[in-house]
């Protein structure tokens, strides 16, 4: 077996809240191989985001270990974690988190700024990524001039620009309408087909069905890990649009 892109060993995260001790993650063991598309499911408060933040090196575990491409990243300093995120991780957030009053291109270039990529190289790569997400025509638009779906595409381009080993998305369709959500899922499936490793948090089973593997959390524990034949997002999108047309004409 090849080394996993990311693996966790007895992963625990504890929070101290007003004297109360909360075990947000209770010993999670997981292996995610290169090229996998994994959906993380579970009710609200079950620890999905906590788990994602640990995978993404945004936070350090209380107990247990995280191996990123075989290297232990569980006990790194804030500066070391920043470098790891910059090099190996791409994030997509529910709220897009784009810099306002900054063009799409500059937003996408942001990670490259922190890796000291030469400017012309950064522009070339950012332009490529924006083309990949279908926004070649919108490069000099500010977030306020873009729709929610377009903003999320910019965010996805930003997550891809440093060619990360792992693409993490926390409820990326949560702030979008169903149709736009399906469009975004279609984009993720397309990226997956190009060989990207993707971990995506959602509490909607419909969305999770587009991934090839579903992890289910409850109360900080991993209670299910199953592989399925993924639904095709392009087909789902087409069906959705036909249904809507039928409703309008009816």
């Amino acid at each position, binding site marked *: 077996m090849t080394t996993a892109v990311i693996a966790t060993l007895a992963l625990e995260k504890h929070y101290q809240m007003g004297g109360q001790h909360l075990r947000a993650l209770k010993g999670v063991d997981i292996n995610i191989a290169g090229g996998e598309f994994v959906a993380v499911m579970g009710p609200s408060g079950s620890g999905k985001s906590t788990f994602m*933040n640990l995978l*993404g090196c*945004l*936070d350090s575990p209380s107990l247990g270990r995280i191996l990123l491409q075989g290297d232990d990243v569980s006990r790194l300093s*804030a*500066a070391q974690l*920043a*470098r790891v*995120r*910059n*090099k190996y991780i791409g*994030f997509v*957030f529910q709220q897009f*988190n784009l*810099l306002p*009053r*900054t063009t799409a291109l500059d937003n996408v270039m*942001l*990670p490259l*700024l*922190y*890796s*000291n990529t030469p400017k012309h190289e950064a522009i070339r790569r950012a332009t490529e990524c924006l083309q990949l997400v279908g926004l070649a025509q919108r490069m000099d638009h500010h977030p306020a001039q873009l729709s929610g779906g377009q903003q999320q595409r910019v965010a996805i381009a*930003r997550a891809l620009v*440093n060619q990360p080993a792992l693409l993490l998305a926390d409820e990326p369709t949560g702030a979008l309408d169903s149709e736009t959500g399906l469009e975004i899922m279609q984009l993720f499936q397309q990226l997956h087909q190009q060989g990207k490793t993707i971990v995506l948090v959602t509490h909607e089973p419909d969305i999770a069905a587009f991934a090839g593997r579903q992890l289910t959390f409850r109360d900080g524990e991993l209670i299910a890990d199953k592989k399925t034949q993924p639904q095709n997002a392009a087909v789902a999108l087409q069906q959705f649009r036909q249904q809507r047309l039928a409703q309008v004409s009816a």
Partner: protein
Amino acid sequence: MNTLTLFKVAAVALRVNLLRSILTMLGIIIGVAAVIIMLALGAGARYDVDQQIKSLGGNVFVIFARGRFSGGAREASGSSQGLTEMDALAIEQQIPQVNVAAPTMRASGQLIYGNMNWAPEIHGVDNRIYAAQSWQVVEGRTFSDTELASAARVAVIGQTVKRELFGAGDALGQTVRVNKMPVTIIGVLNGKGQNTQGNDQDDLIFMPLDTVRKRIAGLTLSSPKAVRSIIVQVEDERDMADVEQQMDSLLRQRLRSTDSEPPFRIRNLSEMIATRSETMQIFNGLLAAVASVSLLVGGIGIMNIMLVSVTERTREIGLRMAVGAEPKVIMKQFLIEAVLLCGLGGAIGLALAVAVSLSLQHFAGLTAIIELHVVLMSVGFSCLIGIFFGYYPATKAAGLQPIDALRYE
């Protein structure tokens, strides 16, 4: 991320909140401008004093008759002896290093010409005054010996008096009334302009000593040849101390004074000017110190706005960290923002100071000199203020946890 890029990022951040950036800078702008203007005026005053001392040659003494000398009458108790014209002559003749010793006498009075009147300084002099105070008669002539001996009703006037009474017209040969007495103008002095204290040096009129003594002051004097002061010009500046001693013993002997406090006082003009300017320097320094307090207040304003900015941009900071900004890079970004605010404020303050100094020079006739080291120091200092007051907000930004920052509402 290299420093140049960080500067660009900071510049963009400041431009986004342009009005706020300008208002924040205002404190620094005003502070820096005030400090530079104060220092420029101080330097200007110093320059003026140097010039004045230079123009006096640093080789001039003034000997004053001590005691109240009202209207030319000496009213001191004790010695009945006052300074006289003969003392001036003795100084000039018996002390070889002395070029010239000019006796003078002041009086006050009104000049009337037609329906105009004017009140310049009235000096009773003889022809030594021109050499002693570096005056030149540019129109007409000086007093003749007969005029001097006969208390003639003639006068040589300064440029200001000429301008005020005659405008562009001819002054020579005109008759003016000095305290009702008709006086003929026989000469006009060259113009000297203002002195360091802003006093007009050309607002004066010379008349023969006897004329002033007998016809204007009109008081009984201790001696018919009494004078109020003697202006002494020494050949070589290096002999000043020696000459002062010689004059002191000569005058004590002549005035038969054995007191520890003789009835005269010898003042070195350049020393007098230097003393006066010292007071002004202290005052200027005080103002500069007050101005630097406003710099401090400006710095606190910077800190306040930077703290607000860090709070407002918590999510942005979280995002930057998430995509790979190390804490020290975030720190640097905010420090550079603060330094840019202050440095820019300093530069604008400098420009303002230059503008104000130039207009003070142009409209108020003050000398203002902005020295290079003051420019470098004030802009450098305002950058330091940026680092000092930006440090805490920057540390706060760098210390944020990425997940908390990203989740911040």
